[in-house]
């Protein structure tokens, strides 16, 4: 198989990992180097599904001995196998990085027999980049379930971010989709090790939504636990898609709106500090109802329209159409002795009036209509 074919096959095999973040606060110094990191992250293209391409996201090999039932690389699936040699992968990546096509490397792999042996080859690739090519840009290193602690420590030293995928919210749910992986010893234990290590951009994780018939509540509880106990920077959600030749190919795919709603709630948990338990109130049979969770939450928790000039920061955040920026602007104006007196003023501040109108009062007046109350 030539290099272009490997790029295609192994890129395709790695595309289901959704993390595309490329921001890092690591300090890069000196001039004898290639590359640096950006604190804000940069997207270099967008695919036909609208997703950002910022990293060269690839597997080292797609020859896997694990048996995840949703995965196209699993041992059950007849597939064209391909593997990079470390120097090949380093060369391809440097070509793309120098051309400003990608912002960094996202290196994952199928488990070719033994996770330690595969991880060693992955490490060899990143070490080549760092030492021979003097690459100082962003590297996201995927930890394989069951990897040895010493190897994880080596990966932590040369990477900006590590991640290991949960795939399912609990031990029993993971057992439904894989007979080989153990939730506690192969994944959670590794996350604990990673938590103890100093990594510039920390660790992340990902769950496949809908592959084991789990509820939204189970997923959100697992995500909340991860944020609380594992210090993960982000939990990513990937709606289950049935793939050809996998054991779950006849199972119905998860609607993308469900994944979207989970991201909505996840954002509110992380950025608005709204406790996970509050979302139980709006759930139906442990699942989020259709529509915008923020509007559901506002309807369930707000007593009536909130006065824009007296509501505190956290009350403002609960109003649909007001985000952290516009809420802070309203508070800043108030602290400086200026009151919001008109809708146009709110519009200038950045409030989305179409969504906020029903839930706010300006100088005692409301603008809400029944139509605006609809989701």
């Amino acid at each position, binding site marked *: 198989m030539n290099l272009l074919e490997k790029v295609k096959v192994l*890129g395709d095999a790695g*595309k289901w990992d959704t993390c595309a973040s490329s921001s890092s606060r690591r300090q890069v110094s000196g001039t004898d180097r290639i590359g640096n990191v950006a604190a804000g992250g940069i997207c270099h293209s967008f695919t*036909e*599904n609208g997703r950002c391409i910022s990293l060269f996201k690839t597997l080292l090999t797609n020859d896997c001995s694990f048996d995840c039932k949703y995965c196209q690389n699993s041992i059950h699936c007849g597939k064209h196998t391909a593997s990079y040699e470390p120097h090949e992968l380093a060369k391809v990546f440097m*070509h793309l990085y120098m051309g400003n096509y990608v912002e960094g490397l996202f290196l994952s792999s199928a488990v070719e027999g033994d996770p330690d042996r595969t991880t060693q080859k992955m490490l060899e690739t990143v070490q080549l980049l760092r030492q021979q090519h003097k690459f100082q840009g962003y590297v996201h290193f995927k930890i394989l379930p069951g990897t040895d602690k010493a190897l994880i420590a080596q990966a932590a030293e040369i990477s900006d971010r590590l991640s290991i995928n949960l795939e399912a919210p609990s031990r029993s749910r993971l057992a439904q989709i894989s007979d080989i992986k153990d939730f506690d010893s192969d994944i959670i234990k590794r996350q604990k090790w990673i938590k103890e290590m100093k990594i510039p951009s920390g660790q992340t994780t990902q769950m496949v939504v809908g592959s084991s018939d789990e509820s939204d509540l189970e997923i959100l509880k697992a995500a909340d636990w991860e944020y609380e106990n594992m210090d993960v920077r982000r939990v990513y959600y990937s709606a289950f898609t049935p793939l050809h030749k996998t054991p779950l190919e006849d199972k119905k795919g998860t609607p993308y709106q469900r994944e979207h709603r989970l991201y909505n709630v996840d954002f509110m948990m992380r950025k608005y500090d709204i406790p996970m338990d509050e979302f139980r109130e709006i759930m139906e049979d442990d699942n989020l109802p259709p529509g915008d969770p923020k509007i559901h939450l506002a309807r369930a928790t707000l007593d009536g329209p909130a006065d824009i000039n007296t509501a505190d920061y956290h009350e403002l955040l609960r109003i649909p159409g007001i985000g952290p*920026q516009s809420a802070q602007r309203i508070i800043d104006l108030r602290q400086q002795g*200026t009151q919001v007196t008109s809708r146009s003023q709110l519009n*200038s501040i950045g409030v989305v009036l179409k969504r906020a109108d029903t839930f706010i009062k300006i100088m005692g007046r409301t603008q809400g209509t029944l139509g605006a109350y609809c989701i």
Partner: protein
Amino acid sequence: MTRRSGWTCGGVFDLVGRHKNYDRRLHEVVLKQDPRLVVNCATAESRRLYEMQRSVMRCLHLKKSFLRLNVSEHGILYARVELEHDIGDLLLRHFHQRFPTFHIAIEHDRRVDVIDTTGRITHHKMSLQETLNLLESTLPPNPALSGLHYTEDLWSEYFESQNIRERRNLQLQRRMMPQKYRDPDAIETLKAKKCRSITEYLPD
């Protein structure tokens, strides 16, 4: 007038002077307004200035993202670009931070700006090829940089491989990235066909 980091106006409107339609009188009007309102964009004038600043920042961000660089065997990274606002030097400094051991040449607005390895920017009123010839005469070839001509093929294969067909959402893609940035040859084609706008070039 200061703002906390991460906020959009960035304190003073430091980039707004680079906007193609920069209006000094508007800027002066805003400077005379109540800073409490200006800092939160709560007046129409400050909002307008803020939008101009955003437009410059957006242009810079897009060029950082979508400008593709070619690599010469003499250690020069070069590209042609059309700039809406006056941000050529900012773009060069961004790439100099990234590739400090390379000379970087960017052709725009009928001139070529070059940043050398020390960070010094020079302007050349000649074509990109002529500028490259001039620079290459002073730089020895670097064997490690040969064979970088098939990057476009690598990128095409990789880009295709990342598409998840089951999640196709062209509307979202168009919103995130205009057509001219999706097609690397689009701008060249536009020029060759003498199209005045991207819509003239696009098929129905």
